[in-house]
């Protein structure tokens, strides 16, 4: 059952613009993600989705506008453990990297541990739990590069979960993943959102899946031209005229 708490803002982007070498990539974007929401940010290639997510995560500074995470100004925000990030990695990380599935997931404990502290039994336990959530525990000793794209993506989700986040942000998670695995993947995200009560923000060009899976959709093409519930999306003629992509 949906359990969006409209009184609690997880992410607030207020009039965000971003220019790169004089070219405006994002123009005046305002959007809010509430606790428990499942938001799909959709747009075509080069629409500025990844730039937006990098701004929301503090990896890029907007040219203008402000970001608040969990009600706090992003420059003062310290509690990064609350945010689980799944980068666009399943298809473009070093497949020869010598790390086992368990070693990769343990990286996700960093934000809980901080500098100068080494990993403890508790970290290993959390990593195990996270791997069980994505049904990858039996692969813990395999090298990450030896897994299929879908399995790797699950491991990256486990890494995000290992830090006990309150929101999980995923950047194009289904790129390069086979169709049938994609369905399993969305089932997993639904589980995270409905059962683990995590707020989910997903960037994708896959509007079709989002219209079935997400609660809200934000359509981006350098600017935000639609942001509402999925039902409203189908009523909105503008969005239907410009189905991106």
């Amino acid at each position, binding site marked *: 059952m949906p359990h969006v708490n409209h009184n609690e803002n997880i992410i607030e982007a207020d009039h965000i613009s971003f220019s790169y070498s004089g070219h405006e990539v994002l123009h005046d974007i305002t959007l809010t993600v509430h606790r428990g929401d499942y938001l799909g940010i959709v747009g075509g290639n080069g629409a500025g989705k990844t730039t937006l997510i990098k701004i929301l995560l503090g990896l890029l500074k907007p040219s203008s506008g402000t970001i608040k995470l969990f009600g706090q100004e992003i420059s003062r925000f310290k509690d990064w453990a609350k945010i689980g990030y799944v980068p666009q990695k399943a298809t473009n*990380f*070093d497949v020869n990297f010598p*790390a086992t599935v368990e070693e990769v997931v*343990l*990286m996700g404990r960093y934000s809980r541990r901080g500098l100068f502290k080494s990993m403890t039994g508790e970290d290993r336990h959390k990593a195990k739990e996270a791997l069980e959530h994505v049904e990858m525990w039996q692969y813990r000793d395999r090298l990450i590069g030896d897994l299929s794209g879908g399995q790797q993506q699950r491991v990256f989700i486990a*890494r995000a979960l290992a830090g006990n986040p309150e929101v999980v942000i995923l950047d194009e998670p289904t790129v390069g993943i086979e169709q049938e695995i994609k369905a399993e993947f969305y089932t997993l995200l639904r589980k995270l959102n409905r059962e683990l009560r995590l707020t989910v923000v997903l960037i994708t060009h896959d509007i079709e899946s989002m219209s079935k899976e997400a609660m809200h959709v934000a359509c981006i093409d350098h600017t935000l031209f639609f942001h509402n519930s999925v039902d409203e999306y189908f009523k909105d003629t503008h969005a239907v005229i410009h189905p991106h992509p």
Partner: protein
Amino acid sequence: MNFFELFQYGFVIRGIEAGIIVALIAPLIGIFLVLRRYSLIADTLAHVSLAGVALGFLLNISPILTALGVTVISSLGIEKMRNTKRVYGESALALFLSGSLAIATILLSLGKGFNTNLFNYLFGSIVTVTQTDVYTMLVLAVIVVTTLAFFYKELIYITFDEESAQVAGVPVRWINMILIVLAAFTISLSIPIIGVLLIAALIVIPVVAALQLRRSFTTTILYAEAISLFSVIAGIFVSFYLNLSTGGTIVLIMLAIFILIMAFKRQ
């Protein structure tokens, strides 16, 4: 002379002590450099350290210490230049490599340092290693290992996925700086045993060989350590018996191991 009589010579023992220290440290730094496609920085810093060695000759103080100073300062310069993004990363390396080599030749010609002693620093020789060198190397090694232990999990995270590490709050820029300074430490302390021109091999080859075995991160480090330790000790003995350059012998043994692993993997 049999194997055990060898240990009657003080310089042999010092050489082996120094060799073991270097052999243990180099792959620890190497794994992070190699996996981040940073291998060439080892070569650049090695050339930079030659300018330091030349300075040591000229001022008549320990070449390891002057090499250390010059290399650490240059490593910070390289990192800063890379971060400002005004020159490409590898161009920064080329600038430092050729610039420091030019400075080294000038300093050496001023100090009339083109002699056999210089040859030892270029290609390594256990005869070069003094007792003070061994102590200096030990102190540097302790610093390198302790610092790596402190930042181990951050280094793995950054090496695997810098962006996610940054989102998780890892101070990426600082850790990168620390890594490059540690590389400078390792290179300076390896000079007497393996020589300026071959240090990069010691940092890179055992790691590249161990990576072929495709194991976990921790196991890969252990394999690299084993390959490095074996090559250095075997290299010291072989070079002593056959009167060859120590550095060259060590590097060829490491390459032979790498080729053996590749051949074995193909079967």
